[in-house]
């Protein structure tokens, strides 16, 4: 358990996260307007989204399915009947004066998310619920000295609100929770997980207490738009509360905003008023009843999720849990790896993907889906290593060129004459030459300076232009030196 040191002893931070994940859908939750990001203001607004008089909501089936899939993905219970409620409050970008959400009867209850923590540690965090709701529009406060501009393009877009139990105990765990949740959402394709565009947003409830003490008063930090900021905001807020209490103050339950430029949280003025949302079932919508056969159909069509995939990679491919974890963090990476590994040495495949490929991709600032070298091309290179056409060392140079030019491995090996020498006669000649040229070093080696073996290997390699098969070379060198 990560404790924070204060003047009066150690403190435990208690965190619960509310994640708003925008459902990947063409049209909105209750209207037929488009959902694309970055459109002209108010160009994706129907009279329903703008809450014009007499307009009525009709739910988008696809969004319901995405919520069900996500619920299954986080191992929640999909409720056959759920209810939409109105959450009543006034805000400039909330056109109806209420948000259609789910309060007493969400579409998914319970669930859990397994965190992958450093040093192979793991913790399972409970999920309280997942419910469907509409997003609000966007208020722009910086366009005019005394006006707020309101764009309703986002109003009515489907969100899944995923609420964790207050079981997270550090900013690090919160970060791991968000990463894992994002991975699951991306695997399912139900949310693109893009925090910069706001399709994944997070509110953090933070409180502190002495270990074993009852829960402290919590503050809610709103709309944190990156995992890093969430972690910074939590650390700041925990420290703020500890300092406040230790100086004799009392934490006030309030909504706070994270100011990423200054790295601090501050109270939100617009949320100062005590809220009374007056939830009641939306009379414009009837209960949402799911057909059990439909739930089963969606369950059967679920992709393999990261935890299961990681387990399989460790078991079937004999990968280390760490490598498996890295490979499954994105579905595309896992798929790429499996394509490379198919029929080959899986550990070598994992090393090449997480080592050479990731290294060059990182340097180039590219994602795996933009890799200039395909999985099949890497596979072909691995085949050249396996059949001793090239040495592992040469292969790295070949790979760099593949990455650069997009050419395939065999062509590069041929064109550059990099085929490794496996003819033991040619290697033997080179070994003999090196031994003959370095009598003193040979004497030293024979006198017990074993470290020199590596030196001789290098010399022979050099003499063969790096093309000598390392196995043959080692064998011959050992024999000749000892002889």
């Amino acid at each position, binding site marked *: 358990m990560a404790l924070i040191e204060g003047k009066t002893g150690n403190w435990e931070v208690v965190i619960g996260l509310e994640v708003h994940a925008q459902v990947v859908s063409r049209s909105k939750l209750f209207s037929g307007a488009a959902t694309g990001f970055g459109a002209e203001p108010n160009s994706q607004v129907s009279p329903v989204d703008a809450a*014009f*008089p007499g307009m*009525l909501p009709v739910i988008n089936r696809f969004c319901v399915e995405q919520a069900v899939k996500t619920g299954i993905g986080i191992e929640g219970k999909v409720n056959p009947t759920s209810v939409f409620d109105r959450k009543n409050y006034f805000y400039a970008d909330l056109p109806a004066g209420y948000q259609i959400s789910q309060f007493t009867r969400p579409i998914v209850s319970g669930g859990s998310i397994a965190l992958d923590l450093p040093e192979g540690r793991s913790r399972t965090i409970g999920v309280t619920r997942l419910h469907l709701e509409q997003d609000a529009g966007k208020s722009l406060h910086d366009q005019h000295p005394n006006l707020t501009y309101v764009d309703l393009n986002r109003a009515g877009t489907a969100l899944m609100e995923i609420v964790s139990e207050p079981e997270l105990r550090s900013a690090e765990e919160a970060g791991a929770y968000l990463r894992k949740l994002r991975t699951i959402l991306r695997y399912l394709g139900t949310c693109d997980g893009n925090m910069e565009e706001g399709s994944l947003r997070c509110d953090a409830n933070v409180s502190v207490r002495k270990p074993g003490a009852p829960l402290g008063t919590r503050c809610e930090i709103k709309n944190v738009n990156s995992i890093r900021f969430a972690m910074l905001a939590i650390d700041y807020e925990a420290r703020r509360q500890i300092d406040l209490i230790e100086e004799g103050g009392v934490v006030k339950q309030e909504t706070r905003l994270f100011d990423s430029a200054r790295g601090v949280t501050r109270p939100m003025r617009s949320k100062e008023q005590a809220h009374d949302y007056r939830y009641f079932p939306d009379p414009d919508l009837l209960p949402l009843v799911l057909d059990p056969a439909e739930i089963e159909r969606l369950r059967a069509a679920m992709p393999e999720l990261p935890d299961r995939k990681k387990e399989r990679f460790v078991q079937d491919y004999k990968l280390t849990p760490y490598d498996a974890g890295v490979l499954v963090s994105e579905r595309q990476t896992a798929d790429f790896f499996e394509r490379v590994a198919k029929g080959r040495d899986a550990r070598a495949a994992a090393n090449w993907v997480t080592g050479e490929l990731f290294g060059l991709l990182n340097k180039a600032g590219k994602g795996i889906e933009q890799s200039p070298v395909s999985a099949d091309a890497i596979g072909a290179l691995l085949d050249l290593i396996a059949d001793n056409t090239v040495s592992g060392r040469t292969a790295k140079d070949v790979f760099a060129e593949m990455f650069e030019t997009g050419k395939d491995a065999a062509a590069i090996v041929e064109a550059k004459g990099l085929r490794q020498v496996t003819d033991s006669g040619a290697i033997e000649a080179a070994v003999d030459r090196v031994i003959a040229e370095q009598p003193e070093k040979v004497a030293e080696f024979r006198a017990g300076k074993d470290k020199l073996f590596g030196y001789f290997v290098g010399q022979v390699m050099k003499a063969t232009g790096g093309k000598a098969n390392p196995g043959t070379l080692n064998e011959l060198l050992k024999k000749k030196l000892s002889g």
Partner: protein
Amino acid sequence: MELCDLTIAQARDGLGARRFSARELTEAHVKAMEVARGLNAFITETPERALIDAARADVRIAAGDARALEGIPLAIKDLFCTEGVLTTAASHILDGFKPPYESTVTAKLWAQGAGMLGKANLDEFAMGSSNITSYYGAVRSPWRRRGDDRPLVPGGSSGGSAAAVAARIAMAALGTDTGGSIRQPASFTGLVGMKPTYGRCSRWGIVAFASSLDQAGSLTRTVRDSAIMLRAMSGHDPKDSTSATLPVPDYEAALTGNIRGLRFGVPKEYRVEGMPAEIEKLWQTGIEWLRAAGAEPVDINLKLTKYALPTYYIIAPAEASSNLARYDGVRFGLRVEGKSIEEMYEATRAEGFGDEVKRRILIGTYVLSAGYYDAYYLKAQRVRALIAADFKRAFETVDVILTPTAPNAAFAVGEKMDDPLAMYLNDVFTVPISLAGLPAISVPAGLSSEGLPLGLQVIGRAFDEETVLRAAESLERAANFTARPPVLS
């Protein structure tokens, strides 16, 4: 016979036989609208539009291509959104609002060839039973008490619709009924007022008051016209999640005139304290009429009747408080400027809503607020379930239920005005049906001792408007209500 005195069915025949044109028919009604402007039945008159509609209808008729309501000029309650035509809900807060869309029900009427005379006055946001809460002024009934020239209320909230049809300005009118807003004014003005089953007509494009109760319906002068209107208005609408997916019957064909063997319930709980003896007597007469036509009266119990009104006055304001939150001065209608957005909201809504609307928003906000939700709102929804169950049980033994429509005849402008609760009691017989979502119709059955119309209500099973209409027609025939508002004589 004057063109304005024709029923829709008669006009349909006359137009078909080329005895007059749609243009002549509409011109006569436009003229009547001008003459009767003193009733304040319309918020917006659209005579040019009506004449264009008529010209189109004449082309259709000439081509032998007439539809169900071809050339019929109608009044539309100003709660229905009409594309490009001012739509106010009789509220200051919708100042200048021209919807960029047409309500489903009005669109269906136009698709059947009807024409629009104008947008009829109503109680603000349909909240009221006398049409005195309109920002555009009270509507006056064309009726007068015998020997008393004080103006009377037409009932509400569809008061402008009722006045327009009673005064022979419109051949029929579109209304909405949340707790009695079609049936009570129909009873007050000697008209047939039909509230169909909840879900029968789309609510899309109707300014919402209480979503779980609002239903479109018609005010007509005959049951047959009511059947014609209902067929044109009904049908599943994918844009309304509460719209029923049932096929629409030919309601006119249901008017067989034969109610032999029909069992009709008579709930003794409708004999409420203080109800005038003449209404009790009229009810007895109605029972005799149906019996004489071969139907069989059955005593039934609707034990929770007296709790329907308080239930309604929790649920309807609760829904309204939320439905009316959208009138915030941001996207349409009135804005009263303020230094901050909060000031703007509070000033806009203080000035934009009238007293009764504010009262209901405050009550609704209160019953939904933290700590009271269970005691009021949830309790009311539980009682509502019991009320609906009472009706369901009753309909296991009867086909329809017969009751008075209202506990009193029309009253004068100024009477009952100071006490909201006394006003709410107008809907004591209509509200239970609304809570249960059932179809009901008010049929003019006689005159009070003061010479004012009184209606009887026929209630039916969910989606069985056919039987309701058939029984209503039988009552209509027996009552032979021919009285006309004195204004017309």
